[in-house]
């Protein structure tokens, strides 16, 4: 039942604009540019011709998770909790 909830909630997240909100915040705070710079390193290392999506995902995602500013994380969690509270019967 728990995972069922997670799945259901994932579908409603878009309707409530959480995805867009997060992306906007991350761009605003420079997270995107930071990661892009890191991408450049990966590309130079692997070579422009040969770099794959996998290469980028493996190198970038862990860093991306860590680099999210605390304020952004806080705000997003708040919104999510509010969202869940709204729909708890």
């Amino acid at each position, binding site marked *: 039942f728990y995972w069922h909830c997670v799945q259901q909630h*994932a579908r409603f997240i878009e309707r409530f604009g959480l995805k867009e909100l997060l992306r906007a915040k991350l761009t605003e705070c420079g997270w995107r540019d930071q990661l892009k710079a890191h991408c450049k390193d990966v590309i130079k290392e692997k070579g422009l011709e040969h770099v794959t999506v996998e290469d980028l995902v493996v190198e970038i995602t862990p860093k991306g998770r860590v680099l999210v500013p605390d304020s952004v994380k806080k705000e*997003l969690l708040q919104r999510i*909790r509010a969202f869940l509270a709204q729909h708890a019967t």
Partner: protein
Amino acid sequence: MKMEDMSLSGLDNTKLEALAQDIYSDLVEDACLGLCFEVHRAVKQGYFFLDDTDQESMKDFEIVDQPGVDIFGQVYNQWKNKECVCPNCNRSIAASRFAPHLEKCLGMGRNSSRIANRRIASSNNMNNKSESDQEDNDDVNDNDWSYGSEKKAKKRKSDKNPNSPRRSKSVKHKNGEYNVTS
């Protein structure tokens, strides 16, 4: 499936918090993946490093804002009076007359067969067809290409194309000397 149908009250606070964290993780992961895909595409399409162009080269790409010239700096009336060399007859033709000329020259298009047939007819009688005569014929039929000649164009449309498969055996044609050969 409405949100209200799902009862979250069954979940205690710790579970709700864990749920919230999971949702948050999902969102961050989604943002990361999105970035990876964007970057990868930019790399493969060749525009990823565009921002790194040095200032000097960037000046080459500034938008041009001068009269008589488009935003790339090209003169846009340039081709009006250029001359083209016809690949078929190797004559130099003005650009604005080039399309109709090609039509006649290559023997394609609406009017070209009529002219060709007329020429065949007249050259049967006279063997010294001069260049200037060809010019005349060309010019006369160039009327189709300008606006003021709709009357003539309409007249021509009523003429049947003698070479079309639709023609009947008895073809009415203005030139009495015309011989039907297919």
